[in-house]
């Protein structure tokens, strides 16, 4: 059995390379599209979480509290639902939205909804890391809210925002593989159908190694750009 089992992982002639490239591409595009969507959504939510925590007075204070409470609750709830359950939970919604529950596009709503709250908390933290004195200095110069958001909050926390995107993107790569088991495309689906279903261990190995490589590349790009942008201590 020993030699046979080992050999079954390296029978590269049994791999359909056209399928391999198609699935790799699907994994990459699903990951990129949802990471971009998560980044935008997460920054918006993070900004809301951060801004509604700032001290205010009067009527605005009550609205701030309400909005903060609602967004916080949503973020916490969606963050605690396991991804695989979220996909199932979202099936009707996905169907209504994209018209189908299988294929790479169908995985997007679940990917985005489960990763965005995760990233939103990281964004909020990144903004809180900024020295409050710097925000106050901008206020003292007469900056308005939009200028503070663009020129101080987003700009000063950019290294942290990028590190957060890297971590989130890597989590999303893992999620795409999971989504594959219930019909979304990509390497996860390929490994599940061809590797597990058709008992082709080589496909499983190739899919695994490819995912590791994609993760490594993602990590490398993320780390390098965060490092390049971070001027705090060089």
């Amino acid at each position: 059995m020993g030699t046979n089992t080992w050999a079954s992982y390296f029978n590269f002639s049994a791999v359909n390379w056209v399928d391999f490239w198609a699935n790799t591409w699907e994994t990459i595009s699903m990951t990129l599209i949802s990471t971009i969507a998560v980044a935008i959504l997460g920054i918006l939510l993070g900004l809301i979480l951060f801004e509604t925590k700032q001290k205010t007075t009067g009527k605005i204070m009550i609205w701030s509290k309400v909005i903060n409470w609602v967004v916080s609750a949503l973020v916490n709830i969606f963050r605690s639902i396991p991804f695989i359950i979220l996909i199932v939970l979202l099936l009707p919604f996905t169907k209504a939205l994209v018209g189908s529950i299988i294929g790479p596009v169908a995985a997007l709503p679940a990917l985005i909804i489960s990763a965005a709250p995760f990233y939103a908390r990281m964004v909020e933290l990144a903004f809180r890391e900024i020295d409050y004195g710097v925000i106050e200095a901008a206020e003292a110069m007469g900056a308005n809210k939009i200028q503070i958001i663009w020129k101080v909050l987003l700009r000063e926390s950019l290294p942290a925002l990028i590190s957060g995107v890297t971590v989130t993107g890597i989590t999303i790569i893992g999620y795409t593989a999971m989504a594959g088991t219930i019909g979304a495309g990509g390497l996860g689906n390929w490994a599940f159908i061809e590797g597990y279903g058709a008992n082709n261990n080589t496909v499983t190995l190739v899919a695994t190694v490819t995912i590791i490589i994609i993760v490594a590349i993602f990590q490398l790009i993320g780390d390098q750009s965060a490092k390049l942008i971070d001027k705090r201590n060089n």
Partner: protein
Amino acid sequence: MIEFKHVSKEFVTNNGKVSAVSDLNLSVEDGNILGIVGYSGAGKSTLIRMLNGLETPTSGEVDVNGAKIASLTGKVLRKQRQKIGMIFQHFNLLWSRTVVENIMFPLEIAGLGKAERLAKAEELTTLVGLKGKENAYPSELSGGQKQRVGIARALANDPEILICDEATSALDPQTTDEILDLLLQINHKLNLTIVLITHEMHVVRKICDHVAVMENGKLVEDGLVLDVFKRPQQDVTKRFVNQEVTPAMHDTEIAVHELIEAYPQGLIVQLTFHSTQTQMPIISEMLRQIPEIDFNIVEGSIHQTQGGPIGTLYIQLTGPKESLDQAIPFLQKMKVETEVLHYGD
């Protein structure tokens, strides 16, 4: 001209109301440098933050060159803030921006074009002595250099006043002096009104022409630096002034004590000289007029202030009682402030 009129500020906290500033009146003339001193929690920061609306008074009026700051909001307030430069203890620079980019920041906020921003930033980098450091990031600068960027940034929009909240507290004495020289230079060059907070009387003495002393939210004493240094009225002020005029106060007390024990019959006096008196041979004049007296120096010091020099001298006088009795009126006649610390018999 800056005017605080009956200004009070209360903070509502979970533990009840805190009165940070209460019914305070104070004015600063154009081109003056006012130093605000007081212990921690006295309300200094709260007071000066009202000048640019970072804090709003609970009651009273804050007037900066005719603008009623407390009543401004929104766009008008933001426009007004551009006319008030502020520098901070911890510099508060943007890490992600280079020196010039930090200096250009307030100009971007004000909506100036790129060419104008660059030209102004260039000019200011030279003014604050950072030529050659234009493209450095704050993390590559020393504390003093960071504060220079802070000053340049505060000057970018040609402010009418400059407010400094403990701008030198994070710096070593040498760097503090350099920054103070820079502030003084700017004050002379641009006739800029400066309001600064400090814990060190050394700072007040070096650059301020007026000083205001705060305690528990109240203004307890204010006036020309030289006057306040000469005749501090309140206990807080005395403590602050003593910290500066006689840094070795404690040592002096010990020395005086030892002298009293060694020469119980002696007369020990503290003399305070100001301005031109510091250049006159008052003591030798006294010895010529009352030759029976012998004297001994315990301690002495002279400090320069913006209003002129100020000197303190502790001496012991010995000799026949009738001669000693003449000494005090003589010194008083010469307008030297004389305090008898001990008169043995």
